[in-house]
């Protein structure tokens, strides 16, 4: 971050951009950070049945200094909000936030004085994942979609303008469609 943004636009830059984005999506280390029941589902995703390691994400880093992705797994209480924000602030750029479960996304069933009504009041969220709790498959789906988003990230203001002009986007195909067994009709 920094130097590459000052470069002029060109063919080489497109390739560099792809490479950079590829490396960022291929090794996206999540922060070890679970808040409530959703965290159990997040741990299951790390287990051998679902194996988040396939995407190079099994290195949950205990220190936010080495994390790329914060999975807000669970409801955020008002007391926890500053802690969450601090962890987010301690993560180095580029960083992403995945709001997992309805509680983190909107407060969910806890419509009361104690729970932050959506973690987007505290940190910017990149992708929302509904469900109470979302199944590990859903979490993986959200992560794959986040990967698709990361692949779209421009390498600087010039590239961003160009991309917006051309309307280039990676399609967010649901995993249920993308990985549907062959022969299953639509």
């Amino acid at each position, binding site marked *: 971050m920094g130097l590459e943004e000052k470069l002029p636009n060109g063919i080489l830059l497109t390739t560099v951009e792809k490479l950079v984005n590829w490396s960022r999506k*291929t090794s996206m280390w999540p922060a070890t950070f679970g808040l409530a029941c959703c965290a159990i589902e997040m741990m299951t995703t790390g287990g051998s049945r679902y*194996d988040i*390691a396939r995407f190079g994400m099994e290195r949950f880093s205990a220190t936010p200094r080495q994390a790329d992705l914060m999975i807000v797994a669970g409801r955020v209480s008002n007391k926890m909000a500053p802690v969450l924000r601090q962890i987010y602030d301690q993560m180095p*750029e580029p960083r992403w936030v995945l709001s997992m479960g309805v509680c983190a996304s909107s407060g969910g069933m806890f419509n009361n004085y104690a729970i932050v009504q959506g973690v987007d009041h505290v940190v910017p969220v990149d992708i929302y994942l509904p469900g109470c709790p979302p199944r590990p498959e859903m979490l993986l789906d959200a992560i794959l979609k986040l990967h698709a988003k990361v692949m779209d990230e421009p390498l600087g203001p010039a590239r961003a303008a160009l991309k917006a002009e051309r309307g280039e986007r990676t399609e967010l195909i649901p995993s249920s469609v993308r990985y549907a067994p062959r022969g299953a009709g639509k």
Partner: protein
Amino acid sequence: MTTTAVLAQAQQRLSNAELLADDPLWLTLIKVVVLFIVVMLTLALLVWAERRVLGRLQNRPGPNRAGPFGMLQSIADALKLSLKEDIRPARADKWVYIMAPIIGGIPPFLAMAVMPFGGEVTMFGVQTALQVVDLPVGVLVVLACSSVGVYSIVLAGWSSGSPYPLLGALRSAAQVISYEIAMGLSIVGVVLFAGSLSTADIAAAQSGGWFAWILPISFVIYLISMVGETNRAPFDLPEAESELVGGFHTEYTSLKFLMFFLAEYANMVVVSAFATTLFLGGGAVPWPLSAIADNALSSGYWPLLWFGLKTALLIFGFIWARAALPRLRYDQFMKFGWKVLVPLNLVWIVAVTALRVLRNAEGVTSGQRIVIIGVAVAVLVLGSLLLPGRQVADEEPQVPLAGSGYPLPPLDLTVPTPPRQRRTVRARAEQPREAVTASGKEAGDGNA
């Protein structure tokens, strides 16, 4: 295997030191560059292999999306880490904080230079050996390099200006000092047998039998202490995630963290290659294959293959241990190092020395040798009988106070029914229902 055998060999073939002595500078440079590239590639492959093997050991596939079989995973990790924001905590000591990862990254590569990968080859028309440099004190160089690596950990922990790294660094210092001793002592036996501190000579001295067979106890102690030395599971106390967050590298991001990452894996390669040199015959071909064509598979470039395979086997052991064993508690770990490994090593060195003196002594018949060994063993057994036995623990079960002095209830506590409750129950039975609820509530609120 003994000194005479080594001398006989030296007469037939030039030793590595002699071969390397008149290497032109450009050849040394080529070797250095090739070695560096090979080690870097090994590291990239090693990180991937570790994650895959760990995955298989835990019944899951492991990284398999990046490139064929996920082999580009570590490349992606390295690239991503180097492109991340570099944070330096406000309370960090700037220069030490920057220097620490650099100090950690260099020594393992230095140590690789003295590893004897193989014997005589002809490279670009120059007769040379598959080794960058053969120092008369090669073994000490490797030991020195691994100890300098500790400075990086200690300095990183101290300069981060935060408690977790400091604790990790202190642990690491204590750990490496104690395991360095065990490691150094286990090398003493090897040096006694090889009669040299040069790594190439030690590898050559094993043509009659690997030191792993001749000195099994030294070998096992070396294997244990090399895990302790490299801070790997189950001895990964300096970076124990569940206790110390990230240990000494908690505050490090980006390239600096990458350096620590590399240093750890490079250290693994170094200690494994060192074990191969000291105990597994270096580049010598393993037994059944050594019979082929009068040991032809040990000459030329073949030793590279055997050396690599043996090192890979030892590294696999590292990964296996990580998957299979839980982390030791800190005091148990220290106790194991100081009270088991070091004394065992000392006794073993004395025994090995005595055996060698006996064998080399003139005019001692084999019958006398057996008698002397028998007497020594008998004295040892009798002596061990005289040792005071472990004190039998008190019969009474004790409640552990964990040193806090916090008063805990006795284990056989039977909770007596409070008399007041009995009174209330009786009162409740006697009095009319409404009155009891009202008065009981008031009493509970005001007087309790």
